């Protein structure tokens, strides 16, 4: 039986605003095994992004339990969470979130700085990952000099550079046209085929059709969890 990567039990997230508490997630249960490829769907405001941020250890739940790679995240301090983000997770944002003043090579190698690798090793591994997403020739360009699709591929290379067990992508194709979307999704499929677990937040059914399992959020609750039967193939 495959190893469990994510185990979420009775997860709550409530924002406390001046107007009173605003519940965003309510009693969410979710398990995911190694090698799965999951799409999280739902209308905007359904809590799917918040859920993703909690999975990515960028935000903390207000209730329930989240176990990542066998570790209960509630027991971990800030530095330990940073280490999880650095070594177990790769996070891909809708807005790419590349450092605008660093070259693509430096952007991709940045997680390795915090992993304590030498410059030579960083550059070598970053170049490998850039090559993997087909952008090695832009290694010394700045993010502003390449297209959005290319930037997202750089962001994916950055997420992959420290060989994570799990890739989390929050609307990775949200800012891309359909053609570049397909390219990016093809990249995720390839990663999943290589054994990396992938979770994608999306509201596009076309994008979700590339995945193997679909989870639907509505009003902060997980209302549906189904296997994808009409998977686009080859993805």
């Amino acid at each position, binding site marked *: 039986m495959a190893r469990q990567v994510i185990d979420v039990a009775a997860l709550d997230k409530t924002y406390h605003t001046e107007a009173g508490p605003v519940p965003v997630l309510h009693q969410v249960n979710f398990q995911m095994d190694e090698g799965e490829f999951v799409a999280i769907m739902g209308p905007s405001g359904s809590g799917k992004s918040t859920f993703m941020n909690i999975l990515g250890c960028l935000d903390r739940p207000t209730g329930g339990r989240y176990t990542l790679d066998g570790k209960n995240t509630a027991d971990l301090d800030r*530095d330990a969470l*940073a*280490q999880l983000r650095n*070594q177990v997770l790769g996070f891909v944002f809708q807005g790419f*979130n590349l*450092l605008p003043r660093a070259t693509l090579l430096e952007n991709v190698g940045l*997680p390795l*700085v915090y992993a304590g690798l030498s*410059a030579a090793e960083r550059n070598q591994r970053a170049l490998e990952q850039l090559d993997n997403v087909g952008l090695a020739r832009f290694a010394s360009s700045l993010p502003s000099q390449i297209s959005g699709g290319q930037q997202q591929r750089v962001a994916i290379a950055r997420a992959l550079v*420290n060989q994570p067990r799990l890739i989390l992508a929050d609307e990775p194709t949200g800012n891309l046209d359909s053609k570049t979307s397909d390219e990016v999704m093809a990249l995720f499929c390839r990663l999943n085929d290589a054994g990396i677990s992938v979770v994608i937040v999306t509201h596009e059914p076309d994008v979700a059709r590339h995945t193997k399992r679909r989870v639907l959020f509505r009003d902060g609750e997980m209302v549906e969890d189904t296997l994808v039967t009409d998977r686009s193939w080859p993805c």
Partner: protein
Amino acid sequence: MLRPMLGEAWKAISANRLRTFLTMLGMVIGVGAVVLMLAIGQGAQAAIKTQIDSMGSHLFIVLAGSQNSGGVRFGGGNATTLTVDDANAIRQLPGITASAPVIPGSQQVIYEANNWNSQIAGTHPDYFVARDWQAAQGALFDESDLQSGRRVAVIGRTVAQNLFGENDPVGKTVRIRQSPFTIIGVLVSKGQSLDGRDQDDSVFVPYTTFQRTLASSRFRGAVRIMLVQAESDAVMPEAEHAITELLRDRHRIAAGAEDDFFVNNLTALANSAAEMAKTMALLLGAIASVSLLVGGIGIMNIMLVSVTERTREIGIRMAIGARQRDILLQFMLEALTLSLTGGLIGVVLGMGGAKLIQVLWHAPVIFTVSAVVVAFAVSAVTGVFFFFFFAWKASRLDPIEALRYQ
């Protein structure tokens, strides 16, 4: 770990030139102003101290009183009541180490084709003791020169230069008021006095000779001032009292009548001049501190802006695994690099400015290591502290909050 971070810091600094320039400007102005003002203040203080020291220590100046002729009062020092005998009597008082009458005059001094108008004073050898003034060349006149009324003269550096140029004046004969005088010594240079007079533009002769050869009348040969030196500062109040009593007695001044002389304590004057110089240095220091403070606030503002502007960057870095200390280290290095560079430029500009003032206005400036270090340290600490503080606040956000920051 440190090397790549240092590279990152340098990149961040060079990436935004305007911001870097503004940050450094605060440092440069703060540090530069402190270095400049302290150099000027301390230079002025040192210059005044040199002048005070050139006067001699524990000195009294006894001035002749004012003359009162038919209701018209002349200024102090015009009366002819002081005599060389007064000076000789004062010398016998306990606690007095030197007492010299000074008969002032101004004469043309002629040597071959050169001539020079100088202050000529008839005085006692004690004058040189009181003023702690030595001969640079030759010797000073002594008691026997005084007794025999020899025509010898001791000249200051300025007179020597104007009459003899590069030649050695000792042994040469000059003419003053038709009479030949042998130069027996040249005095060590004393420079300007507190009132800006050139102390080296003087000729000294024994007062006996002065009275016999140079004074044209009894009035012109009168003792105008006496220089009296006490043993120490401690005995000065007592000595002042004794001098006053002695002179009142010698001048037969009735009890209750006014003195016909003034006794001035030069040490007190010197102290007040030193006090003034200190006040000026303090004032300059205060102005410099204000610039440092304003510079510091400027640094603080720009640090706040640059950290706030980069909250999103902090979020990205945390999202991919930077720990709090990684973020802090990065910003610390940036702040240090900025502060050290800015401070260094400030020191260089401050010193350069002070040098310029020295060259342009001949104002004395003195650089002290402590002033440079203090100015440098204050701005560096301000810069690093505030940068660090804001970065620390930003690094305590949850990554998602930092990422949402626009």
